[in-house]
């Protein structure tokens, strides 16, 4: 066990930070907001934490906290500005936000280290610390998925007009999703940066959006567990299929396509459907009888 852990510690840590990044994209989508600002938050969190350590001489956890809070505040403010946008327009505006963060990083001079990025921000972070952060984040998300809150969040996403008719303040839920997404993305960025001691503008980019999005599509967009499944698949896939060598990208693309076509709710959706069908066998039999009578 400990041998296995020692050999795979980097992959385990990457799985956890990828999970955080995926969650920062998944949260707004679960609230019906097509926002990719989570990756921008990743950049803000990462740079803020690195600047706090390198330029201000702060210790690890205050730097991470500052990065997360600042990312949360900025993304919430972005939410105030773009909250009326929907669908593709929301997606475009929030990707633009992410790219702006990267442009600011490139042109930030000494503060951000310019195009080369910022070095020397090595924090004291081990797997246990990251796991603790993930547990807290997941606990909050489980609450937003549980019974009553989960039902309201689902309604806000699936049918905002119905939600309003049922007395739910749709705008408030959506704004909350921006703030949550910002904090989680900020945590992902800060922890990733201090773990590797460096961050560059190239990391705050479109390919990160794609990584987070594919993890959710394959794993499942409706629950944190889906993001977890997706993070595990995409972090470990290269090791597992290393025998295919240069065909790796093809296998990767194939998996995403299959998931998008055949598993609209991801791997998790498939599992949930199976459980539901097993659990409601009797009820469906009764329903069939009712329908025959009617």
């Amino acid at each position, binding site marked *: 066990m400990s041998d296995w852990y020692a050999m795979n510690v980097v992959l385990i840590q990457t799985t956890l930070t990828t999970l955080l990044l995926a969650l920062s994209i998944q949260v707004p989508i679960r609230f019906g907001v097509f926002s990719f600002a989570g990756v921008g938050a990743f950049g803000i969190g990462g740079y803020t934490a690195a600047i706090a350590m390198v330029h201000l001489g702060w210790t690890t956890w205050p730097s991470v906290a500052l990065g997360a809070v600042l990312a949360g505040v900025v993304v919430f403010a972005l939410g105030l500005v773009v909250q009326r946008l929907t669908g593709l327009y929301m997606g475009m505006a929030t990707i633009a936000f992410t790219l702006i963060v990267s442009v600011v990083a490139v042109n930030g001079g000494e503060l951000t280290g310019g195009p080369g990025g910022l070095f020397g921000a090595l924090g004291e972070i081990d797997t246990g610390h990251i796991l603790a952060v993930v547990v807290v984040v997941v606990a909050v998300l489980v609450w937003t998925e549980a019974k009553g809150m989960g039902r309201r969040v689902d*309604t806000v996403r699936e049918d905002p007009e119905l939600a309003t008719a049922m007395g739910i303040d749709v705008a408030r839920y959506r704004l909350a999703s921006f703030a949550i997404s910002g904090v989680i993305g900020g945590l992902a960025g800060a922890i990733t940066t201090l773990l590797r001691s460096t961050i560059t503008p190239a990391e705050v980019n479109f390919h990160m959006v794609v990584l987070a999005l594919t993890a959710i599509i394959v794993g499942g967009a409706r629950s944190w567990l889906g993001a977890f499944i997706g993070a595990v698949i995409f972090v470990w896939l290269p090791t597992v299929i290393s025998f295919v060598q240069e065909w790796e990208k093809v296998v990767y693309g194939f998996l995403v396509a299959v998931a998008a076509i055949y598993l609209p709710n991801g791997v998790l959706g498939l599992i949930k459907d199976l459980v539901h069908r097993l659990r409601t066998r009797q009820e469906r039999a*009764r329903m069939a009888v009712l329908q025959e009578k009617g």
Partner: protein
Amino acid sequence: MAESAVGRQTALLAMEDVAVHFGGVKAVDGITLEMYEGNIYGVIGPNGSGKSTLLGAMTRLTPSTRGRFLLDGKDYTRVPARNVHRMGISRTFQTVRLLDDRSVRDNILLGLDALPKQTRKETAMQVDEVMERVGVREVAQLRPDELSYGMQRRVEFARAIIGRPRLLLLDEPTAGMNTAERKEIGKLMRQLCDEGITQFIVEHDVEMMVETCDYLFAMNVGKLIAEGEPQDVVRHPAVQEAYLGKGAAADA
């Protein structure tokens, strides 16, 4: 204001000169009406006469161009749509709008989410009772997409009444149901009315409306063309003309 001739009571819901215009289209154009507690009201009219728009405007989901809305004599024209449910106005939609990923029971509970909190036990009893009444208790754990259309409509009905609204707005409540199911829902509406839930129904089925409603409004091209006892309203020349075309009233 708004006092009935007999009881001198305040109207439960009153609309004064309400209009809803979409660009140049006058979907609802200057409607004034009153509804009193403990009755079933219905509105009939050909397709596109503005019935559903009128219902939407009452819930404030559809913004009105002019006019006033009063509940118990209190103006709620400027109240945001999300607060209308809490004021005791509940509605169903013309098409089924349920959460397909959630159980029937969960879908119905949505009707209580924005209302004052109760104990878990009270909520459980309430949802069981309402499922029993509309006849979906047997399928409580199924998802809406596993149910027939008629059953889905019952779930919507249950969601609308679980919070015991004062005014229940029903947009074609029996569309897609068979005759037996229609009768059942009609009976349930009457029961709810006897329990003090005032109802406002938009429906195509004139026969059912005459059977079920205490008072009818007839609309055409955004305006009220008749109101009164159901039998009288359907015989009204303007209504006959709206449904059957010019000349029909004279032939009848």
